[in-house]
């Protein structure tokens, strides 16, 4: 091994990749897509906003005025305190609750269709007895807006019931109190509060592992095939041993990935600096605490997992001449990575079950599955140790195997090799010729 030569390969691989427009587009666009996706998620879940004109048929009587007041109160509160998610401006109008309810509803139906109002609400005492309030509108899927209205109506109903039972009105605030279930994670160092943010951190780390294995693993495959189609590989092999070239490429491409993460985290830190400063000034450190053990596990599974997958993709790329030819085989490692997401609910709900144990011992799923388990629970120590041991052993094994396929494959042009041929390449020994020990002296 000549590290100077490996370094030259790393340097080339790194600089040439970081210089490409594709790298910078990817670095800029992936977060944009990511945030756009999250934005759409939030928008669809919270996006009520705007205003609704609603006619209220107060057949029960005495509910209309309290409801108007309740909604106005909530809107005021929301303005002062964003914790109260009341962002729809409700404009209510009282519909005459005549003797013939059906006739009134029919008239209102026309109003809705002709867009004079957005909706009408029917507060029918008979239905209220059955815990039912009816809301008619052309769009009935505005989940968030409807929840806001529902809460307000229920509040009004609660107060009216308290009044009808002759209870003191301050009972209301007592009755409305709710207790939250706070989960605590039991660890050897004592129980610590499980924050919602911790899960988000684990998820972000998981996404980083997942995309690195998939995207940058694939880059290795493309890199190998590129060198073959460019016919540069034999020139390089005359100066660098195939294993050195392979190692240099894997490390170089890995560093490109790390650079991308570094850029993202620097940008993210800059963007969130005002937020952090704000939290510091209020004394509320909402930043999720990342346990040091989690960081260590992340680094370990990141490095091992990346080397494992990079070697697999290198071995898959070496025998072929085009991406298309390699595509079929490239599906196999991809399926392993994706399968972890498929089993994600199982792993989350039963982190010490059979599926979880298998997934965290099997080397191709271990980096993701074991990382998840160590972050979310307390897997038995022997399982963690065994998982890491198997992973490291397989990484070395696969890298060795990849090296052998690579050494022969990179010089093979022309027809697509068969599996038996590839097996022969693995078994093929350059040491068949007895060579003096001086051979490896360098």
């Amino acid at each position: 091994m000549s590290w100077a030569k490996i370094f030259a390969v790393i340097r080339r691989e790194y600089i040439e990749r970081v210089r490409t427009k594709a790298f910078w587009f990817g670095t800029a666009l992936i977060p944009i897509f990511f945030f756009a996706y999250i934005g759409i998620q939030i928008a669809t879940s919270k996006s009520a906003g705007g205003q609704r004109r609603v006619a209220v048929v107060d057949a029960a009587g005495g509910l209309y005025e309290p409801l108007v007041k309740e909604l106005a109160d909530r809107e005021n509160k929301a303005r002062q305190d964003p914790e109260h998610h009341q962002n729809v401006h409700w404009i209510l109008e009282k519909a005459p609750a005549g003797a013939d309810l059906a006739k009134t509803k029919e008239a209102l139906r026309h109003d809705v269709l002709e867009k004079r109002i957005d909706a009408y609400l029917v507060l029918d005492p008979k239905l209220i007895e059955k815990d039912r309030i009816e809301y008619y509108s052309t769009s009935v899927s505005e989940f968030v807006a409807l929840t806001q209205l529902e809460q307000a109506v229920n509040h009004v109903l609660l107060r009216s019931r308290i009044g009808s039972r002759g209870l003191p009105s301050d009972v209301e605030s007592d009755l409305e109190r709710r207790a939250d279930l706070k989960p605590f994670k039991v660890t050897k160092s004592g129980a610590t509060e499980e924050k919602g943010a911790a899960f988000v951190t684990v998820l972000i780390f998981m996404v980083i592992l997942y995309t690195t294995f998939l995207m940058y693993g694939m880059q290795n495959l493309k890199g190998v095939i590129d060198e073959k189609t460019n016919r540069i590989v034999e020139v390089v092999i005359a100066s660098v041993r195939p294993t050195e070239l392979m190692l240099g490429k894997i490390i170089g491409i890995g560093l490109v990935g790390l650079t991308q993460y570094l850029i993202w985290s620097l940008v993210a830190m800059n963007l969130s600096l005002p937020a952090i400063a704000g939290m510091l000034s209020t004394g509320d450190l909402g930043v999720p605490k990342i346990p040091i053990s989690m960081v260590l596990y992340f680094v370990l599974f990141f490095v091992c997992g990346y080397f494992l997958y990079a070697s697999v993709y290198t071995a898959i790329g070496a025998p072929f001449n085009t991406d298309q030819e390699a595509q079929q085989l490239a599906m196999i490692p991809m399926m392993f990575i994706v399968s972890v997401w498929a089993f994600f609910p199982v792993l989350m709900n039963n982190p010490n079950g059979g599926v979880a144990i298998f997934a965290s011992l099997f080397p191709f799923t271990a980096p993701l599955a074991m990382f998840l388990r160590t972050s979310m629970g307390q897997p038995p120590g022997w399982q963690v140790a065994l998982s890491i041991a198997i992973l490291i052993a397989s990484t070395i094994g696969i890298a060795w195997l990849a090296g052998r396929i690579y050494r022969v494959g990179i010089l093979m042009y022309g027809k697509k090799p068969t599996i038996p041929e590839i097996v022969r390449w693995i078994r093929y020994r350059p040491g068949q010729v007895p060579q003096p020990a001086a051979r490896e002296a360098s």
Partner: protein
Amino acid sequence: MEFPIELRNVSKAFGKFRAVDNLSFRVPRGVVFGLLGPNGAGKTTTIRMIMDITAPDSGEIHVLGQPMTRQTQNRIGYLPEERGLYRKMKVIDHLFFLAAIKSVDRESARKRIAEWADKMELRPWLNKKVDELSKGMQQKVQFIATIIHDPEVLILDEVFSGLDPINTALVKEYLADFRGRGKTIVFSTHVLEQADKLCDEICLLAKSRKILEGGLKDLKRRHAGDQLRLAIAATPAQVADLPGVRSSAALNGEFVVSLAPGTDRREFLRRALERHDVQAFSQREPELEEIYLAAVRDAGMEETRPIE
């Protein structure tokens, strides 16, 4: 050491196909050594084994006195037949990279790149990307990359293939220059005319086996036979009429004459001088191709054609 490259009983098979069969040869220092033969004769496999890219099944290969090591690898310049460049790289970065993997430090690399870029008129292209270059320009880059570390031995596989006549002449000139500085050059080709003027020593391969080797001058003398070159003021009929002539043919204003067995050359020349004005008289050197065909015939492999 006297022989920078030495092969002893080297064989290599791919599956059932024997690519190289019990091949031995030595390349003396400071010569241009031609590894010649038709396509598929085993030239590229032999060169790859010398470069330690492919391992032989049996036999021994010594490069600069020992089996190939990292140090010897750095002292050899290799231009493979399958040669390419990273297309998206700038020419200068590419040359720096190829120098770095030959363990040339950056400062020496800078000097040598500058020197050769001037010699080969490549300077305006140094900051261009490889795929903006014409094919000929790319070949110049490849050639510079091969010699960037000032190697002691050059191994060139089909170096002239795809080169235009101007670049061919240029490369030949550099090869002569390298030899002049005591460096050893091994080059393979299936085009025998290219080797004819250039080689000091040759090794002829056919069907994975060596059929002939030796100094080119020596081989030519041995295969010279009874043909003479004759520049003479005479008609073809008059030449054919000279005593002792078995056959004659006009060639480029001269005659190639074969004498009948037992004819004395001095006697023939005297007779010719008596009748006509003889301007030149010499033993005709056989073309390399003729030597090759004769060797193939002797080896009993007549169906092998030298040029495909």
